[in-house]
Every structure is written in C-alpha cells, then in structure tokens.
C-alpha cells in the first residue's frame, strides 16, 4: 500500500490530504509534489489533513518539518488536523506541536487560518 496525495486550494491555503502509508520510500516523491504545489498555487498557509494516513514513520516528520520551514519563510502557518493517535505520538515525541498547530478537523483548521 503506497501513499496517495491530494492537493486542493482554498483562497491562500493549500490543503494537503494524505492517505495510505508515509515512509522514506514515499517521502521523496511527496516532497517534490508538495514543493511544486506551493509554488504553482502561490499559497501562504498549509493545512495537513492526516485522517486517512494509516502508517507513518520518522520520514514523515522530516518532510513536514521541511515544508514548515518553507511556509514559514513565506510568512505563513502550518496546521495539522484529523490526526490518529499513532501519528500523534510521533508528533509528540519530536516536539513538532510546538511549531505546527493541531486542530480537530479541516473545518476548524480553515477557521484558524481565517478561511471559512
């Protein structure tokens, strides 16, 4: 089972929905597509919806941190939502919640960024 990635935009927000498994193998392609999506759509903020992500390891943390840094430089914010307990443990362990805000759902994440 691989990784499926869906990019959508809403105003200046890029919505990234991941489903399947995110490991080192999938992370390289994800990074390329994600960077392209940020550039192509000229967005400022990112919402990362992990509702259908069934597996993730530390490679995912690396990719998220990389995109966070790029979004930061654009003056934007990154919000993660609909996270499973297993993925949440990895975020907690790495301290990622100190820089990436967690919201319950995509709706709340959009509200948080002033887009609703």
């Amino acid at each position: 089972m691989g990784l499926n990635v869906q990019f959508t935009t809403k105003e200046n927000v890029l919505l990234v929905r991941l489903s399947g498994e995110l490991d080192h193998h999938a992370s390289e392609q994800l990074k390329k597509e994600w960077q392209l999506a940020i550039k192509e759509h000229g967005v400022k903020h990112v919402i990362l919806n992990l509702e259908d992500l069934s597996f993730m390891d530390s490679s995912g943390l690396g990719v998220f941190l990389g995109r966070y840094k790029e979004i930061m430089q654009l003056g934007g914010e990154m919000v993660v939502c609909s996270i499973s307990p297993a993925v949440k443990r990895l975020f907690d362990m790495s301290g990622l919640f100190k820089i990436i805000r967690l919201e319950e759902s995509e709706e709340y994440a959009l509200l948080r960024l002033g887009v609703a």
Partner: protein
Amino acid sequence: MKNKMNLDFSSVSSNEAFARVAVASFVTQLDPTMDELTELKTVVSEAVTNSIIHGYDNQPDQTIYISCTLEEDAIELIIKDEGVGIADIDEAVQPLYTSKPELERSGMGFTIMENFMDKVDVVSHPGEGTMVKLYKQLKKSKTLCN
C-alpha cells in the same frame, strides 16, 4: 518454544513496506494489540530506512538482514546491514541528530525505536556494518472467557 524467521532483501526503499508487513505478519501469531503491531511496524521501518540511507548510502544492490524470534510473549528483532557503520553511536542515537540534514531526515529514528521497544542495542563498527537488536514483551492483558 522458540519460533524464528529470517529474511534478507535488497536495500531498495520499496522494500521498507515489505519488511514491516512481513515482520507484522509473523508476529501476528502472538495475537498482539493493534498498538503493539503499529509500534513494531514503525521500528522495522526506522531501522531498515537507516540501513538504506546511512548504512548503504542509497546503493540499491546491497542486502539487509532481518531475524525475528518469538518466545512466549517476547519478540526479539535483529536488523542488520554490512554498510559503512556508525563511528559514534552515542551521537547517532541522540534525538533530532541526523548525519544527513540535507535529506530532510528528522533525526528521530533511534528515539522512536527506544520509545516503542523495551530495549534497543546498537552494535556497529565503521566499515563493517550495523546491527540493531530490539526487544519487546507483549502485554498479556488479554481477557479469557471461561
């Protein structure tokens, strides 16, 4: 009774998923919880990824070895490569430490292994390779119906 499984496979990243699913499928006979299974899959993924990226520097024609032993409710996992090895193990296992920041590695691999398993031993010699030994005791809190 000891029950053992050995696996060797090429050092290509598409085998990361294969390795974790194979180990999970072998361990299933001990009837682990979903959380325990996720933890095991994650640590296999971490160790195999380390071997591919760091041990073999992404050379696809090398071999990674996994050995998994089940005894009662305990699991011993050995994940081994014959790659470059680690010069300073104490440094390598530090949270957030990565020797390859340019590859967007989080540096959390060993920290995750230590968190998800009961015991982690790393044996490594520069030029000879790295062996990660992981131990985990499954919880026996399964309800019995009489």
